């Protein structure tokens, strides 16, 4: 019945044992392996042992377990596809305050003159303010035919309008700017002296001492009593 051509050589049969034991062979090859195993009792015994042992591994139970794990996956995928795309850099948001602080420090180090209580600002129709510390106001801001108002802030934080200058060309604007800066410096020196004088316990702003006031008061009182 069985011809030699149908028999599988031993070496090949050994490799097919695992396939046979796990039921992975197609029907035709399975029959050939069973026939061939009859020629090799040791291999036949090993094949039966493997088959009995691997019967423990339930393929259907494994598939059921996987199906349980992936339940509703298609719903999640379709929902996720319809959601709007999130910003891919969102996880770097925590860096924003650090970067902003670093940039601020760098800017302050490059241009320390921008810091201080006194600032000269330029506002064009109330929308622009440029500090005196800029390398050149004329260079950084293109001149317009509109009137420019130059203001300053004193130590009390009050804004003073210094002058109104039409700037039709850059040279004229620079000259006006320099003159106003000089005026501001003088104003600020006078203001500071006044404050210093007020802090002196024996001297008023007008320069009259306390003892002189006492004498004047005494004279007034004596005149009233007379």
């Amino acid at each position, binding site marked *: 019945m069985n011809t030699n051509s149908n028999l599988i050589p031993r070496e090949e049969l*050994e*490799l097919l*044992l*695992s*396939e046979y*034991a*796990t039921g*992975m062979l197609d029907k035709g090859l399975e029959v050939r392996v069973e026939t061939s195993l009859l020629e090799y009792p040791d291999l036949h015994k090993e094949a039966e*042992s*493997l088959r009995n*042992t*691997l*019967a*423990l*591994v339930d*393929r259907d*139970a*494994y*598939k059921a*377990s*996987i*199906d*349980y*794990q*992936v339940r509703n*996956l*298609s719903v*999640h*995928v*379709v929902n*996720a*596809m319809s959601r709007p795309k999130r910003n891919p850099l969102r996880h770097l948001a925590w860096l924003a305050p650090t970067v902003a602080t670093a940039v601020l420090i760098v800017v302050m180090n490059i241009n320390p003159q921008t810091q201080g209580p006194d600032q000269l600002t330029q506002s064009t129709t109330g929308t622009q303010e440029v500090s005196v510390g800029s390398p050149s106001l004329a260079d950084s801001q293109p001149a317009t035919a509109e009137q420019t108002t130059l203001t300053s802030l004193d130590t009390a934080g009050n804004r003073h309008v210094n002058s109104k200058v039409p700037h039709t060309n850059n040279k004229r604007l620079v000259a006006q700017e320099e003159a106003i800066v000089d005026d501001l410096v003088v104003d600020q020196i006078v203001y500071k002296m006044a404050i210093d004088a007020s802090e002196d316990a024996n001297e008023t702003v007008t320069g009259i001492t306390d003892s002189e006031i006492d004498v004047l008061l005494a004279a007034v009182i004596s005149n009233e009593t007379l």
Partner: protein
Amino acid sequence: MSTIALSLDSDAQILEAYRSGATEQAATAFVRRNQRFVYSVAMRQLNHTEDARDASQEVFMRALKGLDGFKGDSTLQTWLYRITINVCNNMRRKKKIVSWFTIGEGPEERDVASQHDLSPAETSVQTDFERFFATVLAKLPEKQRETFALRYYDELSYEEISTLVGTSVGALKANYHWAIKKIAVHLRESEYYESWREATNEH
């Protein structure tokens, strides 16, 4: 629309439906058709149920974004397998980086492939034998484990596995052979084998 939904039982039909604008139906059919395969590959790669689920979702989202431009140079399954491996590798890398910046974690928590993490609900669903068998598979070399899983669980032919993993058919047959032999040794040494034999002898 209903005719499209009913006839989406092959890759070609899914592709055609997707390209014709029935994206939602095609996406659902595509995921359902391949979810078991993608999840099991991801689970073997990551050994973590939550991560495997997240990876599977990411794989399908990537695949669906590129599905319109899929040229068909390989099968959809081969294409999905490559995407899954890439997504899992990226996920492992990210986890490693994050774990280095996490204070108070031990080395066992850093190694994502060393644990088989399950929620209490999932633990109750999985039997003792399934947990034991997972540890047996984890002891196998990666190539043998992957070949066994693709052949035994996913029921792919050696030619298909060869296309997926890029190994010759002969080498895959040898991998499967040795994987089965090692699994059998572990099973025979286990308590489950004895109790199973006793139960079968009684019958």
